[in-house]
C-alpha cells in the first residue's frame, strides 16, 4: 500500500523586543545567569504581568506578513505545568483566542508551487533553562530567558514532503527576518521548529496517528528528521504495526530520533483565561500603523529585482531568499553599471565561498562595499575576470582592499594596443600550423590563440582588445 505523509510545523520565533513580554527586563542574549531577572519574571509572590506593546506590534506584523486575519480581541491564558524553569508554575500563552489566524504562505518545492495554510499565530512567554552540573549532582536554573516574548506559528497539515517542509520553513524564516521581528538565529534558539508527522493510505481523507518531532535546530535537521520519520512510520505500517502517538527527540549526531514521551505521559495543561491580564484589544488604527510601517516582503522584492534590474526569475529568487543577501546585492550594485555581471559574481563566486566556509552572508569576510570595488575594477577593464578571482581570494585571506592587491600583484590588465599587437604577431609567427588550420575553418582554435596571449601576459591581457585584434590578424 502506498502512503502519503501529512506534515504540519509549529515554529517558535523569539520577538526582537528590547524588553521581556510582561516586565521591563532586558532580552539580551549571553548575560550571566539570572542577570536579566526581576520579581515579575522570577514569579515572586504578588507580582503582576504588564503586556509589552512592542511585542504585540511585532506579532501583528508577523500576522500581516503571513496573510493572517488579526483578531480585534484576543486573550491570554495560563498553561499549567510544573518545571523548575517555569517560575510561576504556568506559562502565559494564548490558547482559545490567538492574536492572528487563517493565514497562508505560497512555497515552491519539488518543482511545483503550493499554498500552505497557517492555522494561527499566538503570543507567549519563553521559559528559562536548567543547567545541570553532573559533577556536583546539581541542577541550576537560569531565568534570563523567562518571559522573553515568542510567537508560535502553527501551519495547517498541508505539507506532504520533507522538502516542502524545508521550503515553508525557509520562507517563514526569511519573512520574519525581512519584517525585522525575529533575528532568526536557530542555534541560539530564537527560531525553533517542531514537526507533526503522520502517514495515511493514498486517497484516504482521515489522518493517521501522528508523532511530534522536537529538537530540530537547523533547516537540514528538519528535513532529515521528517524524512527519517516518514521512513520509520512507513516501515512500521508495512510491517503491519501501528504508529504510536508520541513525542520524539531528534539526535542530529546519530541522525535518528528516539521516543521522548508517549501519549499517556502527555500533559493536561488545564488552560484557563489569565485573570491578571485584560483582553487584548487591537483596533484598526493599530493595524493600519503596522501595515504602513511594513517593509518590502521577499515576494515583492523579487518582483522589483526582476523589473528594476532586469534579472531572471531564478536569479531574483536566489538573491531575495535572504534579506541580508538582497541587501548585499543592492549595496554592491549601487556604483556599478553591469548588474547582470554583479548578480552572477554574487551567486557563483561569493555564494560558493560562503557555502565552502559554511557561513552566512552576514558573516562574510568581504563586505558589500569592498566587493563592489572589486567588480568596479572588472567593469572598467582594469582587471580581467581571472585576475578578479585571484584578487577575491586574496581579499578573503588578508582582508586587503582590491585596489592594493591589484597593485601589489601587478594584475592590472594589459590593454595597450601596441604592446598587445607585438605579442599577437609573435604568436602568429610561432604557430604556423595552427594558423593554417584556423584559416582552413577550424575556428575552435581561436581559444588556443587567446590562451597563448594570456600565457604571455600572465593572464592580464584585456580580452576585449585582444579578440578583435586576433580576428583581424588571423
Amino acid at each position, binding site marked *: 500500500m502506498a502512503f502519503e505523509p501529512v506534515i504540519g510545523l509549529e515554529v517558535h520565533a523569539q520577538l526582537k523586543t528590547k524588553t521581556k513580554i510582561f516586565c521591563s527586563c532586558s532580552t539580551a542574549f549571553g548575560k550571566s545567569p539570572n542577570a536579566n531577572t526581576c*520579581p515579575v519574571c522570577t514569579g515572586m509572590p*504578588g507580582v*503582576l504581568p504588564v503586556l509589552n506593546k512592542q511585542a504585540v506590534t511585532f506579532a501583528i506584523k508577523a500576522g500581516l506578513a503571513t496573510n493572517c486575519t488579526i483578531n480585534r480581541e484576543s486573550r491570554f491564558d495560563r498553561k499549567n505545568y510544573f518545571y523548575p524553569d517555569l517560575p510561576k*508554575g504556568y506559562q502565559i500563552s494564548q490558547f482559545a483566542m490567538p492574536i492572528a489566524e487563517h493565514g497562508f504562505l505560497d512555497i515552491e518545492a519539488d518543482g511545483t508551487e503550493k499554498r500552505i495554510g497557517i492555522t494561527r499565530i499566538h503570543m507567549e512567554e519563553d521559559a528559562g533553562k536548567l543547567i545541570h552540573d553532573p559533577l556536583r549532582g546539581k541542577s541550576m536554573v537560569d531565568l534570563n530567558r523567562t518571559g522573553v516574548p515568542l510567537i508560535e506559528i502553527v501551519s495547517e497539515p498541508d505539507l506532504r514532503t520533507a522538502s516542502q517542509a524545508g521550503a515553508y520553513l525557509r520562507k517563514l524564516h526569511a519573512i520574519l527576518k525581512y519584517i525585522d521581528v525575529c533575528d532568526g538565529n536557530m542555534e541560539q534558539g530564537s527560531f525553533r521548529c517542531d514537526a507533526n508527522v503522520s502517514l495515511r493510505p493514498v486517497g484516504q481523507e482521515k489522518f493517521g496517528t501522528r508523532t511530534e518531532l522536537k529538537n530540530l535546530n537547523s533547516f537540514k535537521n528538519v528535513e532529515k528528521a521528517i524524512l527519517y520519520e516518514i521512513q520509520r512510520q512507513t516501515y512500521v505500517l508495512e510491517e503491519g504495526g501501528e504508529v504510536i502517538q508520541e513525542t520524539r527527540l531528534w539526535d542530529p549526531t546519530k541522525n535518528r530520533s528516539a521516543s521522548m514521551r508517549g501519549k499517556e505521559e502527555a500533559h493536561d495543561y488545564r488552560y484557563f483565561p489569565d485573570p*491578571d491580564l*485584560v483582553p487584548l484589544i487591537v483596533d484598526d488604527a493599530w493595524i493600519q500603523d503596522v501595515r504602513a510601517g511594513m517593509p518590502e516582503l521577499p515576494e515583492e522584492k523579487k518582483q522589483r529585482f526582476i523589473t528594476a534590474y532586469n534579472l531572471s526569475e531564478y536569479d531574483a529568487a536566489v538573491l531575495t531568499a535572504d534579506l541580508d543577501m538582497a541587501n548585499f546585492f543592492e549595496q554592491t550594485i549601487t556604483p556599478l553599471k553591469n548588474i547582470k555581471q554583479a548578480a552572477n559574481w554574487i551567486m557563483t563566486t561569493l555564494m560558493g565561498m560562503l557555502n565552502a566556509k559554511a557561513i552566512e552572508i552576514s558573516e562574510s569576510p568581504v563586505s558589500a562595499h569592498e566587493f563592489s570595488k572589486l567588480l568596479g575594477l572588472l567593469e572598467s577593464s582594469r582587471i580581467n575576470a581571472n585576475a578578479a578571482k585571484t584578487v577575491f581570494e586574496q581579499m578573503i585571506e588578508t582582508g586587503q582592499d582590491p585596489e592594493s592587491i591589484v597593485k601589489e600583484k601587478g594584475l592590472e590588465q594589459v590593454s595597450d594596443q601596441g604592446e598587445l599587437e607585438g605579442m599577437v604577431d609573435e604568436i602568429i609567427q610561432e604557430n604556423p600550423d595552427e594558423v593554417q588550420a584556423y584559416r582552413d575553418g577550424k575556428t575552435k582554435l581561436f581559444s588556443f590563440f587567446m590562451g597563448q596571449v594570456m600565457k604571455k601576459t600572465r593572464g592580464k591581457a584585456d580580452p576585449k582588445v585582444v579578440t578583435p585584434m586576433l580576428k583581424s590578424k588571423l
Partner: protein
Amino acid sequence: MNLHTLTIAQAQDLLAKKEISSVDLTRAFLDRIDKYDNTISAFITVDPGLALKQAEQADQMIAKGKSQAFTGIPVALKDVLCTKGVRTTCASKILEHFVPQYDATVVEKFKAQDAVLIGKANMDEFAMGSSTENSAFFVTRNPWDTDHVPGGSSGGSAAAVAARFCAGAVGTDTGGSIRQPASHCGVVGLKPTYGRVSRFGVVAYASSLDQVGPITRDVTDAAMMLNLMGGHDPKDSTSAPEQMPDFTKGIAMFKEKGLSGMTLGIPREFLNLKGIDPEVKTMFESARKTLEGLGVTIKEISLPHSNYAVAAYYIIAPCEASANLARFDGVRYGYRDMDSDDLIEMYKKTKSKGFGPEVQRRIIIGTYSLSSGYYDAYYGRASQVRALIMDDFKRAFDACDIILSPVAPTPAFKIGEKVEDPLTMYLSDIFTLSCNLAGIPGISVPAGISSTGLPMGLQMMSRHFDEMSLIRAGYGFEQAVNHIELPEF
C-alpha cells in the same frame, strides 16, 4: 488622653495641630499590643523599633510642615501585602521566612505619606477561610469574646482595629474577607470595586476576585483610607483608569441632604434563606427601619441567581488559586523539603508540608475543575453563572442605588465550632460572595449587638465605582444607629 481610642480622623487632626506626636501615638498602640496581643494574637510580625523609626520620621515631616493625610498614622497590614525587607508570610509555613524585595503598591502609598506600618496581621492561610483558624501559626481571637473567631480571612486586621492595636488596617476581600471579619469585630470594612485598588504586591488567592480595602473604626476613616489606597496603577493591568473622587465628599453629601432620593433594595432571595440566626434577622429588620427613618425608599428586588453564588465561587476561586499557588514550589524561595531524592518528590513533599489542609483542599478542587474533560462542567459553567450574577446586579441597580443585606448569617462563631465542617463554613460567606463575583463595592457597618454580646454588621452594595454612595449611606446609618462601643480592655 487615651491615644489608642483615637480614630484616624481625630489622630490626624491632633497630629496636624502638633498636640500629639506620632511617636506617642505609636507607642500607645505598641503598649497595647505588648499587653494584649498575647491573648488576641492579631499580629504575625510586629517590629516596634521599625515602627518607632517611622513615627520619628513622620514627626520630622510634620515639624517641617510636610504633613499629608496619613503622616504618622499607625496602620496594620494584612500579612498578604508584600513589604520590602519585612517578612510576608500569608500565614503559611511555605512563606514563613519569606522577605520580599519590593513593596505592594498600596504599601508604597502608605510609605509615601510617612504612615507608620505597625505590624503584619494574621489571616487565614493565603486568605482562604472565614475565621482565621486556617492560619498556619495561630488562631486570632475576637476582642469581643476571646472564645470566638474574629472572622476571616482578614481576621487579624479586623481584630487589631477592634482591639485598638492600630488606628486602621488594610485587609483583602475575595469573598467577604474584609466585610465579614469587620462585621464580627464591630468595625467598618470596605471592599472597593474590583480594579479600584492596585493588586500589585498582594499575594494572589483568586486574581479576578481579590480586592484590597480598609478596615477602620468608622465610615469616615474608611473614606479617608480609600482616598489613599485607590487609583490606577500601571503595574496592575486590571486596575481601573477611573477617576478617584474625594470619598469624604460622601459624608458632606449626607450632612447636606441626608439620604433623600436614595432607593435601597432588599433581595427577596436573601429574606427566605435558611440558616440565618434570628438575631441577625432582628438586627436587619431594625436596620431597615433606621434607614427608612432617614428618608430612603426601600424596595424589594430580585437577584434570581444568587442561590448559585456559593457554588460558582467555590469553583472559580479554587481554579485561579490552583494556578496562583503553583509558584510555591520550593525552587526559588520559601519552604523546601530537603529530604527528597528527585524533583517530583521535592515538589510533592514541599507542597504537602508547606500548605495547610484548607489550601491543599482548594488547590485540589481547582486542579480537578480545570482538568480536561471537567473544565466545561465546572470552570466553564461557573463562569457562565458568574455572568448571570453580574446581569442580576445590573438589573437590580436599575431599580435601586444600594442593595442591603446582613453581612453574615450568624454572629462570630466559637473557635473550633466549624473547623471540621468546611461546607457550613463556606455558607457563612453567602451574603458577601456575590459582590466579588460581580466586582461591585460593598461595605460592612456595625448595626447591632447580639444577646451574647457579639457585634453584627449591615452590608450595603452599590454600582461599579460608586463607593461614594456607600460612604454617604454608611455614614448616615452609622450616625443614626445606636452607637456601638468597642469592648473596653
